[in-house]
C-alpha cells in the first residue's frame, strides 16, 4: 500500500468518500429513490410505491429490455468476432498497414455517435441495402460503435502476447490455424472477456445514434427511458433506469465470473 500511516490511510479514505460519493454514488441513489416514489416536492421523495417496477417488467418495458439485451448481445458478439479478426490481421501486417487499420478502427470512437447514427441512416435508407425501418439498422449501428473498442483491447492484448508461444507451437508441428485455436485464442481469452463486457455495457447504454435509427417495433430501453422522462414521467423513467442498470451490471458480473485458465499465469 502506498500510504503507510494509519491517519494517512483514514485521510485517503475520507478524501475518497468526499469526492466519490457525491459524484458517482449519490446521483445513482437518487434514481433508485425516485423509482420507488410517487412525489418528490421537498428534500426527500414521498409516497413510496412499487407500481413503477410492476410496470417496468411487463408489456412495452419488458419488450424494450429484451430488445436492448438482444441488440447488445448481437452487437457484442459480432464486434468481438470482427474486432478480433481485424486485430489478428493487423498484427500480421507491416507497420504501415497496421497504422491504416488502427486509424480505421479509431473512427467510430473519434466521430460523435450522432454522426455515426446519421451516417448509417443515410447510407442504408436507399436500395440496394435498405435497412431503414428494420431492427438491423439499430444492431448495425451498435456493432459499428463497439467494434472499435473490441479491436483496441484485442490489439493491445496481442502486443503483450509473447511470440515465443506461437513459435513453440509452430516448432511442434502446429499449423497456423491450430496455433490460433489452441494457443493464441485461449491465451487471449481474458482480454476477449473484458472486451465483451465493455462492448455489452456500451451497447446497453447507447442512445444518441439509436434515437435516429430505431423503428417502432425495436425500441431499446434507453430510448424508452428518454421518452418517459421527456413526457415528464420522471419516476417511471427512474424505475426503467434502475432495471437497465441492474441488467447491465448482472451481465458484466456474469462475464467477469468466467475465469480462464490463462488468467492464472
Amino acid at each position, binding site marked *: 500500500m502506498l500510504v503507510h500511516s494509519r491517519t494517512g490511510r483514514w485521510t485517503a479514505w475520507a478524501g475518497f468518500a468526499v469526492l466519490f460519493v457525491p459524484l458517482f454514488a449519490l446521483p445513482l441513489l437518487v434514481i433508485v429513490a425516485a423509482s420507488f416514489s410517487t412525489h418528490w416536492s421537498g428534500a426527500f421523495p414521498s409516497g413510496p410505491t412499487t407500481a413503477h417496477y410492476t410496470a417496468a417488467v411487463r408489456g412495452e418495458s419488458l419488450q424494450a429490455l429484451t430488445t436492448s439485451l438482444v441488440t447488445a448481445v448481437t452487437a457484442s458478439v459480432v464486434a468481438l468476432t470482427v474486432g478480433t479478426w481485424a486485430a489478428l490481421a493487423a498484427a500480421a501486417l507491416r507497420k504501415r498497414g497496421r497504422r491504416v487499420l488502427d486509424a480505421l478502427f479509431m473512427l467510430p470512437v473519434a466521430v460523435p455517435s450522432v454522426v455515426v447514427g446519421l451516417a448509417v441512416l443515410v447510407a442504408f435508407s436507399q436500395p440496394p441495402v435498405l435497412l431503414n425501418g428494420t431492427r438491423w439498422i439499430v444492431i448495425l449501428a451498435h456493432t459499428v460503435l463497439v467494434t472499435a473498442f473490441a479491436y483496441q483491447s484485442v490489439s493491445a492484448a496481442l502486443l503483450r502476447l509473447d511470440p515465443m508461444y506461437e513459435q513453440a507451437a509452430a516448432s*511442434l508441428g502446429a*499449423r497456423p490455424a491450430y496455433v490460433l485455436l489452441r494457443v493464441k485464442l*485461449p*491465451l487471449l481469452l481474458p482480454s476477449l472477456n473484458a472486451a465483451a463486457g465493455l462492448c455489452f455495457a456500451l451497447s446497453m447504454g447507447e442512445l444518441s445514434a439509436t434515437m435516429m435509427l430505431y423503428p417502432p417495433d425495436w425500441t431499446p430501453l434507453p430510448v424508452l427511458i428518454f421518452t418517459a422522462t421527456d413526457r415528464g414521467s420522471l419516476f417511471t423513467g427512474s424505475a426503467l433506469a434502475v432495471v437497465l442498470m441492474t441488467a447491465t451490471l448482472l451481465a458484466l458480473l456474469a462475464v467477469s465470473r468466467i475465469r480462464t485458465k490463462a488468467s492464472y499465469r
Partner: protein
Amino acid sequence: MTSGIRFDGVTVTYGNTTVLDSLDLTVEPGEVMALLGPSGSGKTTALRTVAGFVRPASGRVLIGDRDVTALPPYRRGIGMVVQQYALFPHLRVDANVAFGLKAQKAPKAEIPGRVTEALEMTGMAAYARRYPRELSGGQQQRVAIARALAIRPRVLLLDEPLSALDAQLRSGMLAELARLHRELPDVSILYVTHDQVEALTLADRIAVMDKARLQDCGTPQDLYRRPRTEFTASFVGNANLLPVTVTTDGVAFEGTRLEVAASEAAPGAGATLCVRPHLVGLGPGPNALSGRISEVQWRGSTHRLYVDVGGHRVKADVRELRETPALGAEVTLHFAPEDGVLLGAGVTDG
C-alpha cells in the same frame, strides 16, 4: 532418413546489418554441435534459420538431405527448447507434452503412451497433472524438453536451455542432457550457448561464433588445446596471449627465447603465443619467465597469480600455496614447450 543439419552459405540481414555472414557448417547425424559465442555473435540467428523463424537472405539450410530453406516451421520436424521454457500456461503438463502429437494428428491411441514415455525420460511423469505455473524453473525446462522429444524429432534445437537456471541446477541438467543424448543417439542436437562449460561438457564439436561469423570449429579438446584464433583461445577457457616474434629455433618474447610446439610460421614473423594459466608453473624450469607479482587471488584449491613480465600480465593458476606470495615479489614462471601454442591469426598478418 538422415538427421544432420547443413548450413550452406547462410546469410541473414536485418536492414543494413548482417547478423549472420555466410555460415557454412555441417552437423553430422547424431552429433551434438554447440554454437558458442557472446551475445550478438549470430548463434541464435543461426539456430532460428533451422527452426524456420528467420529467413536467410541467401544460402540454404538442409535437414538431413532435404532443403528446408523455404519450408514453414511446422513442416520441418524439429524439436525446440528455449531459455524461457515457453510452456503453454493454459495447459497441464501432459497436455503440453501431447500438444505436438495432437497438432501432427498422431493416432489417438498412441498419444498417452508417448506422453508418458517422454515425461519418464525427463523424470517428470509424477507431475503430469500440474500446470506449468506450479513447477519450478528446472521442472518447467524438463517438461519443455519432454514436449520437444515427444514428437520424436530428427533434430533438436536447444537455445540457451539452461541460462535461466541457477548454477547448481544447471550442472545437474547438463548431466541429464548428456544422458538423454546417449538414449537418443540418432538425434542431431544444435546447442546454442554463451557458456563455455556447457559447450565443453556436452558437445561433440564446438562452433565458435563472433561478429556474425564462424570463427573456429572443432572438438572441445582440439579447440581448447590447439585454438586457431585469439578469439577462440580467450573465449574457450582462459588464456595468456603473448605477442612474440618467430625465430629459427622457437619464439622470442620480450627478449627471452621460448620453445613452443612446432609451427610452420616463417622466422621473423610476429605471432601470438597462447598458454593456458593452469599449465603455467611457479619456479624455474623450461621456458622460464621472471617478473613481479601484481595481484594474488585465492580460489580455494588454487591460487591465481598475476605476474608482470616485461609489461605483460601473465596469469598462472597454481595449486594452493602454503604461504600466500607477497605482492611485488620476484618470481619465476615456466611452462612446457608442448603447452605453448602459436596462434594462426598473428602469423599470417605478419
